């Protein structure tokens, strides 16, 4: 048994300990907000990566599930007084149910067709929520009633509790990814991602494996949606179904390292840190700077490092390790 238990286990433990004490060290609300954003998008990226990374199905419509999660918990909260903790799980279930027909439709398509179809499904959902005002407040959206400090309703005074919630979500996402990566499902997924026809020829039920991983991914993405509306206290179709969420979910994984456990986390830290630095240098109000830089990074990664930046880090780490302990040899898990 390798991986989490020995050398990597040390690093994961150190990382987790750092993550746990970080809010105690960081006092400014601005910095905590950046940390929460990093963890949230890392989590969405991890959920996306299951479908986009391991199975190589480039979804550009993952915001569909984010939005469904956000709307399910909000409707349950405002119309029926249901706690968002329950609403969050309900949102996950709604997203899973929605992923079945969407997946059935989109997974018949490959490559660019699949990407276009996923964009279209997310757009249709947004347009429906815009159009049907009686159902969910239409274009104006609604604010989440502020109940003060009430943990049972997922509302808190400070930012730290939100930080720990989203940290827990990310930990769950990573644990699920780790389990899948080291199971038959993981190998099937990678096989389908590499060459769907070849995988089917050796007996992998590609449609079933894609549907199953899509269910898991949709569920996780919906949890992020509920968390996000509870955190910002506001929902409307343009926020809940923003194309930028789909884009960022894909971007962080691609830039960090697609189809790797830590890729989305590395990618999000890099992108959000860059974006925070840009904001503090230039001030806000320079619309476009952030995505300009993101897209330049993405183009550079595609041209010079198609496997993502995680590869750069692990190569450097391996170099150091090899220099120290020439006997130890790391077996790369991913191509």
């Amino acid at each position: 048994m390798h991986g989490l238990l020995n050398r990597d286990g040390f690093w994961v433990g150190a990382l987790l300990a750092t993550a746990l004490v970080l809010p105690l060290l960081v006092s400014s609300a601005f910095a905590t907000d950046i940390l929460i954003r990093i963890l949230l998008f890392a989590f969405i990226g991890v959920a996306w990566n299951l479908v986009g990374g391991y199975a190589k199905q480039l979804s550009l419509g993952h915001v569909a599930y984010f939005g469904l999660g956000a709307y399910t918990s909000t409707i349950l909260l405002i119309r029926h007084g249901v706690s968002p903790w329950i609403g969050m799980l309900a949102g996950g279930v709604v997203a899973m149910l929605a992923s079945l027909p969407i997946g059935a439709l989109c997974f018949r398509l490959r490559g660019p067709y699949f990407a276009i179809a996923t964009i279209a499904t997310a757009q249709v959902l947004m347009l429906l929520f815009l159009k049907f005002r009686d159902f969910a407040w239409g274009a104006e959206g609604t604010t989440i009633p502020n109940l003060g400090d009430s943990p049972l309703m997922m509302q808190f005074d400070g930012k730290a509790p939100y930080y720990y919630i989203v940290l827990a979500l990310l930990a769950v996402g990573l644990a699920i990814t780790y389990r899948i990566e080291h199971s038959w499902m993981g190998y099937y997924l990678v096989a389908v991602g590499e060459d769907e026809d070849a995988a089917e020829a050796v007996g992998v039920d590609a449609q079933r494996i894609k549907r199953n991983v899509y269910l898991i991914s949709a569920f996780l993405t919906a949890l992020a949606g509920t968390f996000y509306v509870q955190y910002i206290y506001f929902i409307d179709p343009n926020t809940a179904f923003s194309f930028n969420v789909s884009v960022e979910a894909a971007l962080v994984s691609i830039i960090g390292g697609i189809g790797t456990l830590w890729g989305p986390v590395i990618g999000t830290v890099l992108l959000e840190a860059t974006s925070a630095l840009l904001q503090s240098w230039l001030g806000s109000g320079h619309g476009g700077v952030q995505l300009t830089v993101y897209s330049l990074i993405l183009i550079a990664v595609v041209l010079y490092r198609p496997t993502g930046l995680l590869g750069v880090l692990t190569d450097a780490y391996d170099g150091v390790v090899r220099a120290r302990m020439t006997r130890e040899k790391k077996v790369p898990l991913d191509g």
Partner: protein
Amino acid sequence: MLTTIAQAVVNGLLIGGIYALVSIGVTLIFGVVKIVNFAQGEFVMIAMYISYFLAANYGIDPLVSLAVSMPVLFVVGLLLQHFLIRRVLALGDMPQIFLTFALSLLLVNVALLLFTANYRTVQTPYSDTALQLGVLYVPTAKLIAFMVAMALSALLWVFLHATDLGKAMRAAAQNRDVAMLMGINPDRVFGVAVGVALALAGAAGSLLMPFYPAYPLVGQVFVLMAFVAVVLGTLGNVIGALIASLMMGVAESLGIQFVGADSGLIVVFVMLLLTLALRPNGLFGGWSR
């Protein structure tokens, strides 16, 4: 009622001509180079800004600045193929999608930085005029745009069928390896295909300018339409893309007329999803013959 329908059909056909220019470009690049260009709409946007600034600073009519935007975008296409697309041709679907997608993000956001999100319009003598055809009302600017779009599409068809380079492009689209064995230089053919596709997007941008505002995200409206039309018309099929674009325009226009002003896109997306569900290979099939 009948007049309303006829009027909606006319409006839809006219705007469908513009969709056709964008989708023919997408389908041409896909057919020849086998890449889906997610940034095609952004080249429409660039042409709109070219025409806007030529009109605002020098008083040049957008129909005249077509003669600037088309060659400029043709050259941009050659450069795009040479410096970016060529380098990901061997890498498979994912890097190709990321590349054109990143390019789209980059162009939108650079435009946002340079030009802000403000809408910019050009007022021409024919911007607000219309022809009266019986009970129907045909806006002049849209009619001109439609006719130029159809003329350019016809020119492209002639180019693809009557010139050696055009025939080489069709050959490369049918079977790249065999075409190369026959002595066709793929880099040259790919470069021209991307160049022509971008020039068509450029034409769309300049033709839109008299009646449509320029803003950084404007391309996304057209590229979404183009994707739907290209899938409906079967990826890689030029005539299919043209017919499907006109259908999309009419469907959108009828949707706006009968379902509500915000419903045009719903109708279009539902058409896309239905097509994908029922006829994943599109309505027409095969490369244009």
